């Protein structure tokens, strides 16, 4: 143990988190451990959200619609000014890769926890990133390195033929699969382009779309980077994110079962080349597609924290969020971080309020029960709790369940055990998919690709007769044991609990008023 006096001074006094949900809470926790006061921001829909309750302070930033709150540079900067924050952590999504936002943060005299705005601009534009990667000698997916006609006209038949089918429309400002559409034939491009553009505009405020060949079967493997402001770069291993629906990740693991030492060497080399080609510091992920022969193609470089960063934290023991903040304040990465060995195997499943039996469609509502697993090697990063009402305005990610164990079979057994300890009430989640996945022979062998969900799950198997028998047993017992009546009888309790939390809200409001800088 280091003595207290040897501990570094808190890198900042106060930091604002321009995000919500589980990632805001993740950053709040890092702040608390570093001795930094955290400032949450919240829209009208989130006034009583968990991240607001956990932060040291909270500032309102406007109406429920993300465009008017979490995506509003003005609202967030004015919250930062009111709260006296010295730095802004953007989390992921929202404004995290918005160069104009990062520039505005810096222009306001605050530190942006991320790379320089110019780097964001260069890499956030996936089209520009393709050109950068190519120039750095990194293989890229065959495609058109120009934006598609904004006036509704698609690429010419010649151009399409050169890319080949199936092809993929992608948003230049994209991420998280939004604004992406698969096309099988020339005549599909018109309507697909319109939808992709609309989705990209709604999600990123930028409808620029480009076209790549769809590589299939493929695995989605990414490399985690952490760089400081002094030119040092740590390559913190890879994550396999091939279990996806709608081009959005559902499950991530590290190391990738498909990556041999030789492939790993090549992936790390490509990741280093790209990082070397841009003015980079802070956390970033370089995403690649890995084809059936183990060849890799650059997809994009995300210069922000990833949803799945926890998987890397488990196998490296590094607090990525803490280090993001420390390098933003100018700290050097020490040797033990630059040379961190990776240990064991980690798997994350994303718990979404989505119905995997109906095409993973969002399934809003109120969370009535929330029972999370615990025990050795289990980590849960959640953004909701019992009685949270889900807002249809935002991403349906509820929590991330992660496990860490000595090797992949042990991690799978641990995940299976943890899933059996988990229950969420009130909303259909994708937990049924995850429970199925840990027993799927292809996943268990590690021989899966990005087609797994569509090809092996579809809408999932029917309810097994054995499970139907257990379900009726539970329901029958619930009726006989008057579980519903118990809920009514506990009404007194529920009221008291609600009263208490309202009191906590009031106490917070008072505290915020008192502590607001004059």
């Amino acid at each position: 143990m280091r003595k207290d006096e040897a501990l570094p001074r808190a890198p900042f006094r106060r930091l604002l988190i321009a995000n919500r949900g589980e990632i805001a809470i993740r950053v709040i926790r890092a702040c608390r451990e570093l001795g930094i006061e955290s400032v949450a921001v919240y829209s009208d829909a989130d006034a009583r959200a968990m991240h607001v309750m956990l932060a040291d302070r909270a500032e309102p930033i406007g109406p429920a619609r993300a465009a008017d709150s979490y995506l509003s540079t003005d609202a967030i900067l004015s919250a930062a000014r009111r709260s006296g924050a010295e730095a802004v952590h953007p989390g992921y999504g929202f404004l995290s890769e918005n160069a104009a936002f990062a520039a505005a943060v810096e222009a306001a005299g605050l530190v942006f926890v991320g790379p320089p705005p110019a780097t964001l601009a260069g890499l956030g534009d996936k089209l520009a990133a393709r050109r950068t990667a190519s120039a750095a000698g990194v293989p890229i997916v065959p495609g058109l390195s120009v934006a598609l006609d904004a006036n509704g006209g698609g690429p010419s038949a010649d151009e399409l033929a050169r890319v080949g089918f199936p092809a993929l429309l992608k948003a230049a400002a994209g991420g998280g699969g939004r604004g992406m559409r698969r096309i099988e034939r020339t005549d599909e491009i018109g309507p697909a382009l319109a939808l992709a553009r609309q989705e990209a505009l709604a999600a990123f405020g930028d409808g620029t779309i480009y076209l790549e060949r769809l590589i299939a079967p493929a695995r989605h493997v990414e490399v985690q980077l952490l760089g400081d402001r002094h030119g040092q770069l740590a390559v913190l291993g890879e994550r396999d994110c091939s279990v996806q629906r709608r081009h959005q990740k559902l499950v991530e693991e590290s190391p990738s079962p498909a990556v041999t030492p030789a492939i790993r060497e090549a992936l790390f080399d490509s990741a280093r080349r790209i990082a070397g080609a841009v003015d980079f510091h802070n956390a970033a992920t370089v995403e690649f597609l890995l084809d059936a022969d183990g060849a890799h193609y650059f997809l994009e470089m995300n210069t922000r924290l990833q949803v799945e960063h926890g998987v890397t934290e488990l196998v490296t023991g590094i607090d990525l969020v803490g280090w993001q903040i420390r390098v933003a304040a100018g700290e050097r990465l020490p040797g033990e971080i630059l040379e961190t060995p990776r240990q064991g195997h980690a798997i994350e499943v994303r718990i979404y309020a989505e119905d995997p039996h109906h095409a993973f469609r969002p399934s809003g509502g109120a969370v009535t029960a929330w029972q999370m697993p615990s025990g050795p090697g289990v980590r849960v990063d959640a953004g909701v709790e019992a009685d949270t009402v889900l807002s249809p305005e935002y991403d349906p990610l509820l929590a991330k369940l992660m496990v860490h164990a000595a090797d992949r079979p042990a991690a799978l057994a641990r995940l299976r055990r943890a899933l059996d300890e988990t229950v969420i009430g009130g909303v259909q989640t994708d937990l049924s998919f995850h429970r199925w996945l840990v027993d799927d022979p292809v996943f268990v062998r590690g021989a899966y690709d990005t087609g797994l969900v569509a090809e092996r799950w579809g809408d999932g198997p029917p309810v097994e007769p054995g499970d139907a028998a257990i379900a009726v047993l539970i329901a029958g017992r619930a009726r006989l044991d008057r579980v519903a009546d118990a809920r009514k009888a506990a009404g007194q309790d529920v009221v008291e609990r609600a009263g208490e939390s309202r009191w906590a809200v009031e106490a917070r409001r008072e505290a915020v008023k008192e502590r607001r800088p004059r």
Partner: protein
Amino acid sequence: MTDLDLRVAGVAVSPAEGWAISWLDPARGVARLGDGRELLIALAEGSGSDWVVTLRGRRIAVSVMTWRERMLAEAEIATERSAGPISVTATLPGLIVAVAVVAGTDVVEGDALVTIEAMKMQNEVRAPRAGRVTEVHVAAGSRIGAGDPLLRIE
């Protein structure tokens, strides 16, 4: 248990044997159950005859009726078997981004009616059967809740 009629998707199911259940949180319906091999956390939500059991992450609707309730229910079903006008409702809350029909539009089963944006995803509401749209209750830009009526088909 033997004096209850237990059904999943309308099919009578015998309760599993060899499982012990204890209520961890009876107020919320959280149960721990085991058979000596598996240990699971599950959930029962509902009241009267309508229950939803969450088991291995899956929400399974279960009908729990006394025999008397069962006979009454069967008598009701027999009188309701006629096809009349239907109201198409929203299955999830969100924002209406497009309405593809107006009152008077003839639709066939599967036709796109309304596009709802929820959690940043666009979801199409399709015609459950053929007919003529007689009323449209929403317009692009309307904010709707789950269960809100969207339109009527006759």
